[in-house]
């Protein structure tokens, strides 16, 4: 038998399937990357996706509402706009909690805050019951629109076909991964596309009404003042109390309906995106609402008798494309809502009903199992919507169905507000209040709707009005009971410790004082082993690695702080996978804390990291205080003295930059670890400082990165009323001071030896004079040539001794800086010779060849003894720098008005590290005790006083090694007058 399909049905099928094919095309285009990311991740896409709030109700239900309540239809839009206008105080805190703890649904949030899996299950059941009528509305509008367009009863079957395609879309683009939390760019872009389509459809219908049915705004106004005035006066007016109740219902629905909660908090890019939606979504809703009265008035102006007000758009004109526009707008709105409801609700059912009833076992295909469960639930929810329409929805109007849904969802509002603003609310109060409120709703509104029962008689209370619609009375009664029980029971029952912690984490102004406990697992790799009992090897390893990557940690991580953060991250990730209740159970069981004798302390580092993360959200006094905290922290961090802070449990809380430089250990790598797990010698050193009473530990000798250091440690115990315990240790590097002290001792010893030597030299002078006189006498007393020669030799030798003694005494007196430089002629050759004499007195360096090639005619202006001191210091350095058999040459010459005097050696040269501060006091490369580091400094000072300068070349030009030091001194001129007699104190 050949059955021909009417052309209208074919047309609707083509139109509907064509639109859905376009939606698939949009999805594929985004997925393949044909649409730039800057578009798909633009905040406007997020706002348009939030436009999913404007479901089929906005296309058809609003027109019906306008017909029955005039501008009362605006409650649907203004309620949602109000919720988003309050985004900074309402939505942003919810977003913060859901992001931090990876909560993807209202049920997750309730289960997390009230620390009860049953709270999550209860909210899921309420959401399911409340959303079914809303799903039914979407199918109903589609089905009845098809019936009207095709003038047949094929709407139900065609709607089922569309539902199947919509379910396929939801599975392909929304349930690709097992994780329900996290942004789906493809899905969000497709929903945004649907919002654009329905907005254009509504604006198009409004334009048709205004310019095709009426002749523009003027004509509309004339109609409203003329023939339409009577019709409008006949429109019932919504009671102000009912209007406010409607506003409240839509306000709650705007962020608590499963699909809206999902988009608002699971898909939003950032806080900024959400705040942008606070004005952009109300604008979108304004544009959606604007054409509604136009459509209704246009339909009224054409047909005064409209059988189904909801579909007035089809009655405005005879043009087929106007009907097609209304149909596409309705399909876009219905399909978007169904997709998002199915995805959101499937996640809730999976996490809070399926996984609670049947916890996941250690299985190799955990992810696949979760994914297929979720896909099945997505399809089941959409088909459930169609079944609801078939059994229940088709017998009721859109307003009745919609209000049943919104009143049900509003039952979660008291719990949600308590969650954000009342840390004292507890599980018992919330659950009993919710059950009672839902009970009233089911009994008064939902069951009569489902089972076509007569509306029950509600008890007379001061709140209810016997003449008011049943939805109004049920709303007031159920919410009043709900709120009352929540408050009373919470006030008179105890709140558990876990719940208190969660309440603080959720509360807007809570002071969070996280405690820290050690974990049973000692390293990050232990986590995989422990979790494998619950998740199986593969999933456990994958989850641990994912958390490690997110935190930038390694599997070898042992720091207690890092392990606690790893545990939190794994719990949050598992929460996104299988809900907070199951995640918490798994983590508590397999990654437990150790409650031993360790003192309970605040997790200051965690609190700080949270403050850093939320810094941009702080305002007013809190922001100022945070600025002050950062300032103090930076003061400690950049303190030029090493500083570390240890908690009472020996956990390291601070390790500043100076200490990082001193120890070679970065703060990031050790903060959060125990003192005993620090690299040597720090555990012993810090332990000694902590045990030392009462004073500091002075100059503790330690070896750090191959060098010897002397550290002084000061300790203070952090105590007092507001203190969180612990100790602060200051670590000063006294290595240089210790070295200077040693050098000073050495220099003092040398100075005393020098004084002794000068005294001895002075004393030697008398006997030498005596010996010389005796030798002179001997020459007069004999003519024996042999004796005369001996007497000459004795005299020469005594002269030599006298000369040496004079040089030594002169050198000893040369350090006196207060004496002005005399302008005496000084022959550099004799100075060089004197210096060589003195150098030869030293026992060391006897195998170094010292040669003096200074010409006799180079005469400079200056102080012979101070220049001798310079030359002795330079020769001494040159000789010490030479190896065995090394050579040192002294040369001199004239250049213009200056004489140059050069000491060249072929020794080791000057270390480049000390070259820049060669002439600074205490600069030496000699081992401690062998050099004072003062010689070159003194030489520089003396040459400077002589108006000369020093050039250093190491190695000298043309030589592979060694050093050449050239002194430039002013030549002696004949007109130079000596200002003082040369010091002749010898």
């Amino acid at each position, binding site marked *: 038998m050949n059955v021909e399909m009417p052309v209208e049905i074919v047309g609707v099928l083509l139109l509907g399937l064509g639109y859905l094919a376009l939606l698939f095309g949009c999805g594929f285009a985004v997925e393949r990357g044909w649409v730039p990311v800057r578009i798909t991740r633009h905040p406007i896409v997020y706002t348009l996706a939030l436009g999913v709030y404007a479901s089929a109700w906005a296309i058809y239900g609003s027109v019906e509402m306008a017909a029955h309540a005039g501008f009362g239809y605006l409650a649907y839009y203004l309620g949602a706009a109000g919720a988003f206008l309050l985004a900074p105080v309402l939505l942003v805190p919810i977003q913060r909690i859901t992001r931090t703890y990876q909560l993807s649904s209202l049920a997750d949030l309730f289960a997390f805050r009230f620390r009860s899996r049953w709270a999550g299950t209860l909210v899921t059941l309420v959401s399911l019951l409340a959303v079914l009528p809303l799903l039914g509305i979407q199918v109903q509008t589609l089905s009845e629109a098809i019936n009207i367009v095709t003038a047949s009863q094929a709407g139900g079957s065609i709607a089922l076909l569309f539902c199947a395609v919509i379910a396929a879309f939801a599975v392909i683009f929304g349930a690709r991964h097992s994780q329900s939390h996290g942004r789906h760019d493809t899905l969000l872009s497709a929903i945004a596309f649907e919002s654009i389509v329905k907005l254009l459809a509504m604006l198009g219908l409004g334009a048709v009404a205004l310019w095709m049915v009426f002749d523009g705004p003027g004509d509309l106004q004339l109609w409203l003042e003329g023939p339409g005035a009577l019709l409008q006066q006949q429109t019932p*007016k919504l009671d102000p109390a009912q209007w406010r109740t409607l506003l409240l219902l839509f306000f709650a629905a705007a962020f608590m309906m499963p699909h809206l909660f999902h988009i608002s908090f699971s898909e939003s890019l950032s806080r900024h995106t959400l705040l942008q939606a606070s*004005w952009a979504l*109300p604008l979108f809703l304004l544009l959606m609402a604007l054409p509604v009265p136009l459509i209704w008035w246009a339909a009224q102006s054409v047909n005064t008798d409209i059988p189904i007000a909801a579909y007035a758009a089809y009655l405005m004109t005879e043009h087929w494309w106007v009907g097609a526009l209304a149909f596409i707008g309705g399909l876009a709105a219905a399909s978007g809502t169904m997709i998002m409801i199915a995805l959101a609700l499937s996640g809730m059912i999976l996490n809070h009903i399926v996984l609670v009833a049947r916890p996941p076992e250690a299985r190799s295909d955990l992810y696949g199992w979760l994914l297929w469960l979720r896909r099945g639930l997505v399809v089941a929810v959409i088909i459930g919507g169609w079944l609801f329409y078939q059994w229940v929805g088709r017998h009721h109007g859109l307003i009745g169905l919609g209000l049943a849904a919104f009143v049900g969802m509003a039952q979660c509002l008291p719990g949600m507000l308590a969650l954000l603003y009342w840390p004292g609310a507890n599980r018992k109060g919330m659950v009993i209040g919710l059950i009672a409120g839902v009970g009233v709703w089911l009994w008064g509104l939902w069951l009569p709707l489902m089972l076509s029962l007569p509306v029950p008689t509600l008890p007379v209370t001061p709140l209810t009005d016997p003449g008011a619609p049943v939805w109004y009375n049920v709303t007031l009664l159920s919410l009043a009971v709900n709120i009352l029980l929540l408050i009373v029971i919470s006030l008179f029952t105890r709140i558990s410790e876990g719940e208190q912690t969660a309440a603080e984490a959720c509360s807007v102004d809570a002071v969070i004082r996280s405690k820290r406990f050690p974990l049973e697992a000692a390293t990050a790799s232990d986590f995989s082993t422990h979790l494998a009992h619950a998740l199986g090897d593969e999933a456990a390893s994958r989850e641990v690695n994912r958390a490690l990557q997110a935190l930038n940690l390694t599997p070898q991580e042992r720091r207690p702080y890092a392990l606690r953060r790893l545990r939190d991250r794994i719990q949050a990730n598992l929460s996104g996978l299988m809900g907070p209740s199951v995640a918490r159970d798994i983590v508590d069981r397999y990654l437990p804390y150790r409650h031993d004798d360790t003192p309970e302390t605040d997790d200051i580092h965690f609190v700080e990291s949270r403050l850093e993360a939320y810094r941009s959200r702080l305002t007013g006094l809190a922001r100022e205080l945070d600025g002050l905290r950062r300032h103090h922290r930076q003061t400690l961090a950049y303190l030029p003295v090493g500083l570390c802070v240890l908690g009472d449990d020996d956990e390291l809380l601070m390790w500043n930059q100076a200490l990082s430089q001193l120890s070679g250990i970065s703060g990031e790598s050790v903060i959060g670890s125990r003192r005993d797990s620090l690299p040597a010698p720090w555990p012993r050193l810090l332990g000694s400082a902590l045990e030392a009473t009462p004073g500091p530990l002075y100059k503790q000798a330690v070896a750090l990165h191959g060098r010897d250091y002397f550290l002084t440690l000061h300790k203070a115990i952090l105590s007092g009323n507001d203190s969180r315990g612990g100790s602060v240790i200051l670590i000063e590097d006294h290595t240089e001071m210790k070295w200077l002290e040693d050098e000073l001792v050495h220099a003092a010893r040398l100075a005393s030896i020098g004084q002794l030597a000068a005294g001895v030299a002075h004393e030697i002078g008398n006997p030498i004079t005596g010996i010389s006189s005796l030798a002179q006498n001997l020459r007069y007393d004999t003519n024996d040539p042999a004796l005369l020669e001996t007497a000459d030799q004795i005299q020469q030798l005594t002269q030599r001794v006298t000369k040496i003694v004079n040089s030594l005494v002169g050198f000893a007196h040369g350090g006196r800086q207060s004496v002005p430089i005399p302008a005496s002629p000084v022959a550099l050759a004799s100075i060089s010779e004197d210096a060589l004499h003195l150098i030869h007195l030293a026992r060391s360096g006897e195998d170094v060849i010292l040669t003096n090639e200074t010409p006799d005619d180079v005469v400079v202006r200056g102080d012979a003894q101070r220049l001798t001191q310079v030359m002795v210091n330079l020769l001494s350095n040159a000789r010490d720098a030479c190896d065995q058999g090394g050579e040192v040459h002294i040369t001199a010459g004239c250049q213009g008005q200056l004489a140059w005097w050069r000491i060249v050696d072929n020794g080791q040269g000057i270390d480049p590290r000390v070259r820049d501060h060669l002439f600074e006091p205490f600069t030496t490369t000699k081992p401690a005790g062998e050099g004072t580091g003062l010689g070159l400094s003194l030489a520089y000072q003396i040459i400077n006083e002589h108006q000369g300068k020093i050039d250093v070349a190491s190695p000298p030009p043309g030589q592979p090694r060694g050093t050449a030091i050239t002194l430039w001194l002013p030549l002696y001129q004949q007109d130079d007058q000596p200002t003082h007699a040369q010091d002749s104190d010898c």
Partner: protein
Amino acid sequence: MYVYRIMLFLVFGGYLLSPLLMNGWSDPEAAWYRPFVIWGGLIALTLWLEQKRKLDER
């Protein structure tokens, strides 16, 4: 918090006074688009407050 207080005040004030919006439906003297003009004004105010908040946070 200053901005939030303005917002709370506006939203709750608007909530209490909002039934007045419905009077325009059957009043031929009032322009039919009056509720939308008020609504648009509220959106503009929110946009201004949002810009102010962004500047404050910089």
